[in-house]
């Protein structure tokens, strides 16, 4: 069993970020898209924490708290939006939200 190095964290968070990004780009269910965004945020958080430990600097961990706070606010607003969308459209398929089509 090899030792867990900083590289492992970088690879893990990259995988998580790519899964999140693909989820945002490819899925049509708004809840899934939303979860994917959360996943990308947490991939970034993981990387922050890993580097903070690796470099012996607490700045990264402080920043994570900010990210979590913002993400919590975003969840509150985002879920409210999804509920509002569902009420008007009877669906949370984001492809139905194409009123801005030029």
């Amino acid at each position, binding site marked *: 069993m090899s030792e867990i190095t900083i590289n492992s964290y970088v690879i893990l968070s990259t995988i998580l970020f790519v899964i999140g*990004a693909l989820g*945002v*780009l*490819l899925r*049509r269910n708004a809840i899934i*898209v939303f979860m994917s965004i959360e996943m990308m945020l947490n991939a970034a958080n993981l990387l922050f924490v890993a580097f903070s430990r690796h470099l012996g600097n607490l700045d990264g961990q402080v920043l994570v708290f900010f990210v979590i706070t913002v993400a919590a606010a975003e969840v509150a607003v985002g879920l409210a939006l999804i509920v509002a969308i569902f009420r008007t459209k009877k669906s949370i398929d*984001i*492809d139905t*939200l*194409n*009123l*801005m*089509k*030029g």
Partner: protein
Amino acid sequence: MNAFGLAPLLLIFPVIGVLFNGLVGRKFVEADREIGEKWTGWFGTIMAFSAFAVAVSLFFSLQANGHHAEVVHLFDWINIPSAGFHVPWAMRIDTLSVTMMLVVTGVGSLIHIYAIGYMHGDKDFSRFFAYLNLFLFFMLILVSGSSYLMLFVGWEGVGLCSFLLIGFWFSFVDKNGVWKNANAARKAFVVNRIGDFGIVLAVILTFWAFGSLEFDVVFETALEMFKSKEPLLLFGQEVAFGSVVTAITALFLLGATGKSAQIPLYVWLPDAMAGPTPVSALIHAATMVTSGIYLIVRSNTLFEMARLSVGSELLFGVISTPDLVALVGASTALLAGLIAFTQFDIKGVLAYSTVSQLGFMIAAVGMGAYVAGMFHLMMHAFFKALLFMSAGSVIHGMEHGHHHLHDHDDDDFDPQDMRTMGGLRNRMNITSVVYIIGALALAGIVPLAGFWSKDEILAHASANDGGIFTAVYVMLVIAAISTAFYMGRQLKMVFFGEPRHAAAAHAEESSNLMTYPLIALAALAIVGGLANLPHFAAEHGAEAGGFSYLALEHWLEHSLHAFELTEEHVLHMPHTPIQIQWSVAIISTILAVGSISLAFFVIYKDTSKANSAPDPLQKTPIWWTSVLPLNTLYMDYFIPAFNRMAKWVAISLDWVFWHDFVHNRLVRDMFVTFAAFTSSVLDQKGVDGIVNGVASTTRRLSGFLRQTESGYVRSYALSIFMGAVLLVIYFMFATAG
């Protein structure tokens, strides 16, 4: 205590009237006809009266401060220091401008009252009063401006109001399908444009030559240049001062021929009678058309300098501009007087008569008789406004009579045709009495207003030597004879004899609102001559009972620097007689009385019953010719020849050549072609092309951009990612480089 501070109110009152009548007046009239008309009409009238009150207070202020001109500065208008071009918006209060203000607002107020009665029931009642007040505003700017540019603003403004008011009933189409009123309005506007062009050039030339447009500065500078006799430097060339001043005054003359309806631009005024009668009275008889005379009187020193500059090679080697002015005026007076013989329209006679009387004034100011010209201007304002408004009252009465008829089958009935009138004296008492007073005043019968003012002009012409003065004198005397004749003819045809049409037999007197202003003007037409009575005796030291002779002359002298400069022997104005010229007065009175009686008692003795009968002028022998061998000569040659001449003048020269060929064919068609070119080629293809081109290019480009907006959240997210990736790549290379 003086009231010069009140001067701006002179302009503010009419503006309030315009705003009230123009913006909310219509609502009042639509809400309630009766009350609305009362409100809007009287509001406009009260504004005119308030302006009159201001003018009166300015009059007394000038009396109190020894007649010194006062310039009331309102604000700076144009200020270009690099060019030395500075035009303040200022009012010049002096005896001349106050005289004009009093005439404009005084006669104007009476006409406002009359118009309340005359326009009763018109659907655009409030619009009419808004225009009338707007006219007063611009006319007051014209006469009170302290510079040529302000004068020009007023000049154009009154032209606009004239256009609006001639075409007041612009939707009227006559039975031939011609837009008569709208055409008349356009004609007046376009013809006046030619004259205005002259004014613009004169104003520009004045600025180039004298470096200012302020009256004071212009006259001062011109006088210094005149004294020094040094040539001016214009466009890098030396030009004699005489040439410059001759050019400026000649261009002013061109402007005056337009606005004051002189040969060759008088053609618009007879057509202008298409407007409502109060307009004919106010604008096309009493005030606006006199602005050409005002312009020349205002520029009196320039004209007097031009008089002494004969031979300056620029324009006229043989004749100075004032002489040209006098000749133009006198020939207009004569020609229009002759044309008036052939008119059957009651307002047509008065229109040509106005042209003729304006000719008298222009001739007077051309001869240097500025005071006599202004005197005649005032008197003419009284009696011609009176005549026009009485004619309006007659037309009203005739229309009234026509409405009362049970058979409405003759649609061709024209309430203005004198051939359908006759005997109206018995139906319309007040109107006929005031009309006769006005007509006698116009004909120059002692002691009515017109006698004194006309006599002063004739006396001035006869008191000076020189071919020009003699020619002008002869022409004006003949014009005066024709004036008396056509007024006698008109009186007989309209008010005496038997009614020639059922409408005339049922005509009714107009309302008090219309007749009271007529009575006031009739009073002015009777006593107006007191304003400038000449001395009757050679020793004129004593003034009888505190009455001052030549009051107007003493009053206006303060504004006419030419008088002062003549006394200093700088200028040489023609001699102005201050004592009555008995020979001239007696001859002109005899001729006027003779001519009016000739028309009234001899040629139109038996007015025919049928309205289609030929004019008696063509067939009636004069009583004494039956005992003279001249009878045949007179009957066979003179009368036909005279008729042919009058007809030729009226039809060939005036109508066919001048109206149709020169004005319609040359001026109008050229103008229309040019306008069509600018509208269809320049405007639609050129300007619109550029504008539409910009719009369609933008549209096409935006079509491309539009396609990027798919409306899918995913594609926006993708572009955000792409952006992020690009940024990352950029930073990688930026840090690497």
